[in-house]
C-alpha cells in the first residue's frame, strides 16, 4: 500500500491533488458530479474586495493542447464569499480549503486577507499576484520583486494563516520573485499562473478574445510549469504548490520530483470534469510502476 499523503508546511493533505483556483468555482457544481471530499483540498475561485462581473465576452479561445481565458476575476466579492459561498461549500466539502485572494492595491489584498483570516474553514491563503486579465493589478505585483514583497509583507501582517503567493510565469527571473516573497515572510509559493497569450480570428481579422490578450493554460504549458517549479524549489526553502498543465498521475509525480509538495489541476477540469478524481485514483498504480512507496520521498528529488 503506497502512501499518497503529503504536506504543505504544517498543513497535512490526504493526497497532493488540488483543483486550481478558477477551474472549480466554489465547489458546488462539482459536488453534484462526484464526492469532492476525495480531493486533497480546493483552491476556490479568486476573490476581490468588490464584486466583479469580469471582462466582456468572448473570454475563451481554444489552442492546441490548451486554451486562453480572459475571465477577469469574475467573483461575488469577499463579503458574499464569506457569507454565502464558503458556508455552502462547507456543506459539501468537509476538509480545510485554500482561499484565493486577488486585488488591485496592497490595501485591497490586506483587507481581503484580514477578513478571510477569521474563517476557520480556510487553512491556507493563496495570494494571486499573477492574474493577466485585469489592468492595474494582479500581474503587475507579480512581475516585480519589490512589489511582490510588499504585497506579501502586507498580507502576512494581517493573518496568522499560512500564506502562499501565486506567481506569474510572465517574468524573466522567477527565482528572484520567489525569493523576494520568501524574504518578506511567505509560507509557500504557488506557480504557475497562466502565460499571456493571444489568438486571432483570421477570417474576421481581429482577436478571438474581446480583451485581445488572455491567459494561456492547459497541457501545452506543463513543461514551462515543471521548469519554473524546479527553479523555485532550488532557490527557496518554503514549500511549493505546482500548477500548470497537469493532466495525469504521471504529471503529478513529475511535478513533485521537480519540487512541488502538492499539485494543482486547472484547465484539465474544464474538458474533463472527472480529471481530479481520475488522477487521484490512478496515483497509487502510477507510483507502484515507478517504485515509489511514499510521495513525500520524491518531493524535489531532482536537483
Amino acid at each position: 500500500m503506497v502512501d499518497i499523503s503529503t504536506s504543505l508546511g504544517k498543513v497535512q493533505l490526504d493526497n497532493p491533488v488540488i483543483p486550481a483556483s478558477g477551474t472549480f468555482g466554489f465547489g458546488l457544481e462539482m459536488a453534484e458530479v462526484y464526492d469532492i471530499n476525495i480531493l486533497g483540498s480546493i483552491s476556490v475561485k479568486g476573490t476581490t474586495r468588490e464584486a466583479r462581473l469580469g471582462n466582456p465576452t468572448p473570454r475563451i479561445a481554444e489552442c492546441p493542447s490548451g486554451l486562453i481565458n480572459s475571465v477577469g476575476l469574475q467573483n461575488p466579492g469577499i463579503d458574499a464569499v464569506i457569507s454565502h459561498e464558503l458556508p455552502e461549500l462547507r456543506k459539501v466539502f468537509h476538509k480545510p480549503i485554500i482561499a484565493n485572494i486577488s486585488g488591485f492595491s496592497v490595501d485591497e489584498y490586506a483587507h481581503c486577507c484580514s477578513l478571510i483570516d477569521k474563517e476557520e474553514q480556510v487553512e491556507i491563503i493563496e495570494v494571486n499576484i499573477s492574474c493577466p486579465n485585469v489592468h492595474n493589478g494582479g500581474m503587475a505585483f507579480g512581475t516585480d520583486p519589490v512589489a511582490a514583497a510588499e504585497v506579501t509583507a502586507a498580507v502576512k501582517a494581517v493573518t496568522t494563516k499560512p500564506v502562499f503567493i501565486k506567481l506569474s510565469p510572465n517574468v524573466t527571473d522567477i527565482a528572484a520573485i520567489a525569493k523576494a516573497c520568501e524574504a518578506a515572510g511567505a509560507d509557500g509559493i504557488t506557480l504557475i499562473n497562466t502565460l499571456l497569450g493571444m489568438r486571432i480570428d483570421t477570417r474576421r481579422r481581429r482577436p478571438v478574445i474581446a480583451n485581445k490578450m488572455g491567459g494561456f493554460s492547459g497541457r501545452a504549458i506543463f513543461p514551462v510549469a515543471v521548469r519554473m517549479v524546479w527553479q523555485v524549489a532550488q532557490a527557496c526553502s518554503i514549500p511549493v504548490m505546482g500548477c500548470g498543465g497537469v493532466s495525469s498521475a504521471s504529471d503529478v509525480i513529475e511535478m513533485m520530483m521537480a519540487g512541488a509538495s502538492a499539485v494543482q489541476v486547472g484547465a484539465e477540469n474544464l474538458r474533463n470534469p472527472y480529471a481530479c478524481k481520475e488522477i487521484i485514483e490512478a496515483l497509487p498504480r502510477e507510483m507502484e510502476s515507478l517504485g515509489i512507496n511514499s510521495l513525500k520521498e520524491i518531493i524535489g528529488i531532482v536537483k
Partner: protein
Amino acid sequence: MERLTLTVTDNRQIANGIWEMKLSGCTAACRPGQFVNLMIGDNFLRRPISVCNWEDGILTLAYKIVGKGTSEMAAMKPGAAIDTLVPLGNGFDTSVDCGSALLVGGGIGTAPLYMLARTLAAKGCKVTLVTGYRNAGEIFFADEFKALGIDVLVATEDGSCGTKGFVTDAIRQNAVDYDYIYACGPMPMMKALCAATDTAGEMSLEERMGCGFGICMGCTCKTMTGGKRICKEGPVFKREDIIW
C-alpha cells in the same frame, strides 16, 4: 450532468453547411433547449451543441460547420464513439400556460426548436414556427416540422423560399396569432423580434464556452439581474432579463 460514451448511428448533410447526427446510448433525459458538450478528436475543449431531439435514448443533433471541431464532427462515421457531457443548461420552460406559442428560429438556431415544438404540440398547445435563413439551400428539417402538425412559415433573405426578408416580416405578413414566444438565433434577429412585439417569451443565447457546466465563468453574460453563466443559468433567458 452525466458523462456518457454515445455511438454515432447516422451522420449526414441535410442542407448547405448543416449536418444531422444521431447518437445512440443517451440514457440521460434531455429537455428542449438544453445542450450537450462533445469531445471531438484531439481538440482541447469540448464542442457545445444544442439538443435537436431526444427520444427513446436517441439523441439527434443538427449542427453547422463553423470550424475545425465541427468539420471533424462531420467526418465521423456510424459506429464512432463520442465522449459526451449530457444534459447541460436549463432549457426552455415548457410549463408556461400558453394557448398558442410562436417559435422563432434563425439559421442553425432552429435546431433546438424541434424538440420544443414536439413537446408543446404534444401537450395541446397551438404551435407556429417561423424560421429565417439566408436562402432556400440552408433550410433543414422542413418535413420533420410539418410532420408534427404545426404551422410552419419560412423567411429567406433572398426570397428563394417563403417570405422575402426576415422572420419579423413573415410574422407580420401572415398576421400570426400567439401569446408566448420562444426564440433561438442570431442576436440581431432576436433583438428585432423583441422590438416588434411586447409578448412575453424566452430566448436561447450562445457564447464561446470553456467548460459548459458552470465552473470556469468563461461564458458569463450581463443580464438585468446580474451576470449569468450561459451554460448554467442559461442558455435560455426570459426576454425581460436580456440586455440588448
